[in-house]
């Protein structure tokens, strides 16, 4: 199934199962018959928490083994999802001096379980959400050239877009809004200014600053200013 055909078909899919079936078909044409889709971060807009392997057809015994040993914590493929600007190959991660023994072992064990020529595709969603696709071949022999990787990236992106469309319920969208004043205060805090300094900069008392910071932390469900700042940056509510 070509990219254009997948785009048309996936846009018409009425369920996630149907969408995944189409995606499997499209990716198998590139040689990847093992797929895993994970939410690397919470996806508030669809009411889902982060989760590893929310849709997959990886070998069951491998997944059982993987989860029992909590490989999702150290898996270098998962780590790369947060930093890579685009598709990457698993083999590009195998730099012994940069990986721990467990991480090297995870990659090797994956191969042993029948996950060959693996790639990872990071996916950037709304408000800082991150998801990821892992794709591999049970038979091996996939030529991981630029064109194949680009096609895989495009297919993954379309899958993600269609997935969000299917899962989004507009009436339940949580919508966090920071007022102009709240954004102003949080931005200064994010640059490292103390509350007193922020008060002096914006000509408000420290009590007023504290009031607004409490409101911000409540809106962002954060129990510290550091977490509130991180969340706001992550969600694009403030920019530095």
């Amino acid at each position: 199934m070509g990219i254009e055909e997948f785009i048309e078909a996936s846009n018409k899919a009425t369920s996630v199962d149907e969408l995944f079936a189409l995606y499997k078909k499209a990716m198998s044409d590139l040689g990847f018959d093992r797929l895993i889709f994970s939410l690397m971060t919470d996806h508030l807009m669809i009411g889902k928490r982060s989760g590893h392997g929310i849709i997959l057809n990886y070998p069951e015994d491998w997944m059982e083994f993987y989860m029992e040993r909590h490989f999702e914590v150290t898996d270098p493929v998962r780590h790369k999802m947060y930093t890579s600007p685009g598709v990457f190959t698993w083999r590009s991660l195998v730099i012994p001096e940069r990986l721990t023994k467990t991480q090297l072992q995870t990659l090797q064990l994956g191969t042993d379980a029948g996950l060959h020529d693996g790639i990872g595709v990071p996916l950037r969603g709304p408000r800082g959400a991150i998801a990821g696709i892992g794709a591999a071949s049970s038979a091996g022999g996939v030529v991981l050239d630029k064109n194949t990787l680009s096609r895989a990236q495009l297919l993954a992106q379309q899958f993600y877009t269609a997935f969000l469309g299917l899962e989004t319920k507009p009436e339940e969208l949580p919508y966090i809004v920071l007022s102009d004043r709240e954004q102003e205060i949080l931005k200064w805090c994010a640059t490292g200014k103390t509350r007193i300094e922020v008060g002096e900069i914006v000509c408000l008392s420290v009590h007023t600053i504290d009031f607004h910071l409490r409101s911000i932390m409540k809106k962002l469900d954060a129990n510290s200013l550091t977490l509130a700042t991180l969340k706001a940056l992550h969600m694009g509510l403030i920019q530095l």
Partner: protein
Amino acid sequence: MIHCINHRTWQHFGGALASQFQLRYQMLIDAQYWEVGRFQGMEYDQYDTPAATYLVWQDRQGTVRGSVRTVPTDRPYMLKDLWPDMVETCPLPQSLSVWEATRFCVDRSLPEEMRRQVKHELVCAFLEFGLKNDIRQMIGVMPPKLWQSVFINAGWDIEFVGKEKTLEKDTIIAGLMPISLAVLEKVRKTTGIKHPVLLTAPVNDDAPHTRAASQEISISNNRSKNDG
């Protein structure tokens, strides 16, 4: 519209003065069990004096469904008498240019949309009253959520002057509300209320509840249209 009731105007507004005492009883004593003065279904305290001004919203029957009290700070006032330590960043005001706002109530049985309208009109009325009477600031002490939902959300930036204080049933904090044309313009823009709302006498000899009734009908009609 908001009616301004004080010693100069109360003769124009029928039973509005008593009605706002009754609203306070329902909202503060019945609903929140405040330990405050009461008489025949009306709540009152030592700051209900001839110096006080009440800004009220009345329904078509003339019943007050939203109100706030304001008193000048050149005489005893609540914050200074009860919680002076809550004001840390400035001296306690004692001036005709600074008035205290207290007893902010909106009837909880009103539909959501009307409650919002009443709140917004009371906030605008505060500013109009202040500008008419050469008042620079209002000072008040209320729970943070009330500051946020009534004033800050209406576009009025509040300057908090001390730490939060936890009472038996709630947390309160003292704040200063600057009064200026610029603030009024901003609040009008935020709330969408483009016209003056404060009345010191009924317009064209209409009974107060008639003015309120036409407004209520307007809101109801809009709701009916939206409900389709």
